[in-house]
């Protein structure tokens, strides 16, 4: 019976599922090495709870057992689940502008402005910015920094601090269709690692990363913005609070936007 039936072709095609491997598992050694921060080879999507109205945040947290503890678990009815996608450079309209670029990440929730990242020996760095399309209604954005800006310097350990200046020379800056010449100064500080409560999970060794970006146009007024993000081994950025512009205090209490990782993307 089998011999007779064997003449019929198999209607099931070859499997298309990728072989699943776990690239990294946290070892909780109080530092994040470069191979412990996800940097996808291709497209990847994470789901985040996002508050995009002015939201109270606690950046200082409590001290429990000599370590900080931040409770960011509360959800407001206005919070929404948003997909945040990181994409490869393949097919991007600006791909030829950034030959070293490896990954494209959105800088805003609407994915209208994108950051172009590269993984270097001991850093993940920002090469420049670009609008999602070459001709958006608000005008094209395309910014090349003269030298890459390290957003993460490895290993990430408590107390690390670095400052980088991204120079945008003549002909290398276009923001919303208008030419831009000047500097973006990035000042980053890693705080102590501690416990971070998110709406659906708790991370026991998250590092808080404070960032202040100063935009200095040639001949124009400076604008500053602060953010505090949390990074965790093998997960990457799990939460971020972005201040309003010209926020005077490092421990700001009201954020323009707060995003927190959700488990609905299947991380556990």
């Amino acid at each position: 019976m089998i011999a007779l039936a064997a003449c019929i072709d198999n209607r099931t095609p070859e499997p298309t599922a990728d072989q699943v491997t776990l690239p990294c598992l946290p070892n909780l050694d109080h530092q994040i090495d470069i191979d412990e921060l996800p940097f996808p080879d291709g497209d990847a999507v994470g789901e985040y709870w996002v508050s995009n109205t002015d939201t109270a945040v606690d950046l200082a947290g409590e001290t429990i057992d000599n370590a900080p503890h931040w409770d960011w678990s509360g959800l407001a009815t206005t919070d929404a689940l948003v997909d945040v996608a990181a994409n490869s450079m393949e097919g991007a309209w600006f791909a030829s502008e950034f030959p070293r670029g490896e990954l494209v990440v959105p800088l805003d929730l609407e994915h209208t402005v994108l950051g172009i990242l590269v993984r270097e020996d001991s850093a993940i760095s920002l090469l420049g910015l670009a609008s999602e399309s070459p001709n958006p209604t608000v005008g094209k954005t395309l910014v090349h920094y003269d030298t890459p800006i390290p957003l993460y310097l490895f290993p990430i350990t408590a107390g690390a601090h670095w400052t980088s200046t991204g120079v945008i020379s003549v002909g290398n800056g276009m923001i919303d269709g208008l030419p831009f010449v000047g500097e973006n100064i990035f000042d980053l500080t890693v705080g102590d690692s501690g416990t971070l409560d998110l709406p659906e999970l708790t991370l026991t060794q998250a590092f808080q990363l404070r960032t202040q970006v100063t935009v200095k146009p040639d001949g124009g007024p400076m604008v500053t913005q602060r953010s505090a993000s949390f990074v965790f081994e093998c997960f990457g950025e799990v939460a971020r609070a972005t201040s309003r512009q010209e926020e005077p205090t490092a421990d700001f209490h009201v954020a323009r936007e707060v995003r927190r990782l959700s488990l609905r993307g299947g991380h556990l």
Partner: protein
Amino acid sequence: MKRIALALLLAANVARADGITETLDDRVDVEGSTRLRGGLLYNFDLDRGLTPSGNALFPSDPDDPKSQTRTVRDLRVRVGLTAHTEGRTAELVLGADVIDGLGGTSLADASGRPDNRGRLQLRNAFVTVLTPFGVAVAGRMGNQFGLGMIANSGDCFDCDSSDSADRIGLIVPVRGFYVATSLDVSATTQRVGAQSSELAIDPRNNAHAMTAAILRFRGDEVRAIRRRGGSRTVDYGAAFSYLWQDHDVPAEYLLDDPGMDPASMHRGLRALATVAWARIDDSKFRVEAEAAYVAGSIEQGSTIPGALVREPVGIGQLGAVVQSEIGTPETRYGIGVDAGYASGDPAPGFGAFPTLQNSTVQAGDLDGPQVKFPDDHRIDNFRFSPNYRIDKILFHQIIGTVTDAVYVRPHARAEIVPGLTANTALIASWAVEGSSTPSGARQLGVEIDSGLSYKTHDKVRIDLTYAVLLPGAAFDNTMLDARAAQSVDATVGYAF
């Protein structure tokens, strides 16, 4: 999370203690068996296309993916050694298996789940000592209770693996009953040093089980004598096994290379398994049944150190089987009906063998984890031991074991000539939770397994089986209906 396994009486020990086994003059006894199997598996992917995750229901031939037929073969060598003191007050038992694919795919590996190819498995390494209080046992030993629905030592002719426990126990005969207590170390992980010796540097990482059992049990020979005398034998027992694990080292089972210092995390597993078993063995019929309920919780269900969920995982699993036959081992004919139930979990997939590969399970997939944070915090599907076999294709090979299912199994046998028996069984099955099946329908299908079995007095056994599975609507795809699967396999074995 470690597999929840019962720590129960070793039936072989009980059989040995019933006074029926033959007296040995020598101090060392060697026994063993070889088993050679070969088979053709036809259309085990049911010709229904891929699941939403892009997997086939069953792996195709890696050398010829378009082929409908897979050829499988394997050889198992099982060796056991027993040494005892002159007065037989102490005994050392050693046993090991080797399963080899003979240069191809073994029947044990065809599904792609466990890989037994060429692997040496230490099944037994224990001592028994007769004490004034009873028989004390210590070491690694098979884990068997009742019909083997939940704890199965893998002694059957067709078994591929074994359920072993590292155990210290005491068996006490009391007024015709065996009362047993044991302490198991079910898992010892966290390697230390470059030599990867499996020492538990933190005992809290071990899964432990404490078991108490009471059993009224007569061995095969005793029951045969009683049948010949027209007596009915009623045996029964119950076991309670409490399992706990405080910590866990997920890198040991999630990573190929866990590194020198993998992180440990809180687990908080607590589970209680209650098992009851009974058998009525009459001169005309046999009825045997087993039921088990596993209740428990896992305080920390995450397998990522440092990334913790705040709600515990709940466990509530129920399994039951009944076997019946009008006829006895001494009669030429036998007919009966078996049935079974394994509770289900509404999460997608059967949950038979959750792995990293099927961790991102979607509705319509065959298998996957039954918890999905943050909304689903329960594991309610009961899994039979994979060595408790009711069929050849559906549960044995495609799903992997009986879980989330209910079945009935009428069966019959007839001895054609002395030693040669024809047998047939029909297995009709349904999913308990429709949401677990690839299509959402509950009808799993009907399988017919028929064969011949030849046994000689000098322990040679030859089995030839043909099986056909007519899949139910549970396996239909959106565009393609599932088609019949078939298998033919032959097994030759010799015990010495």
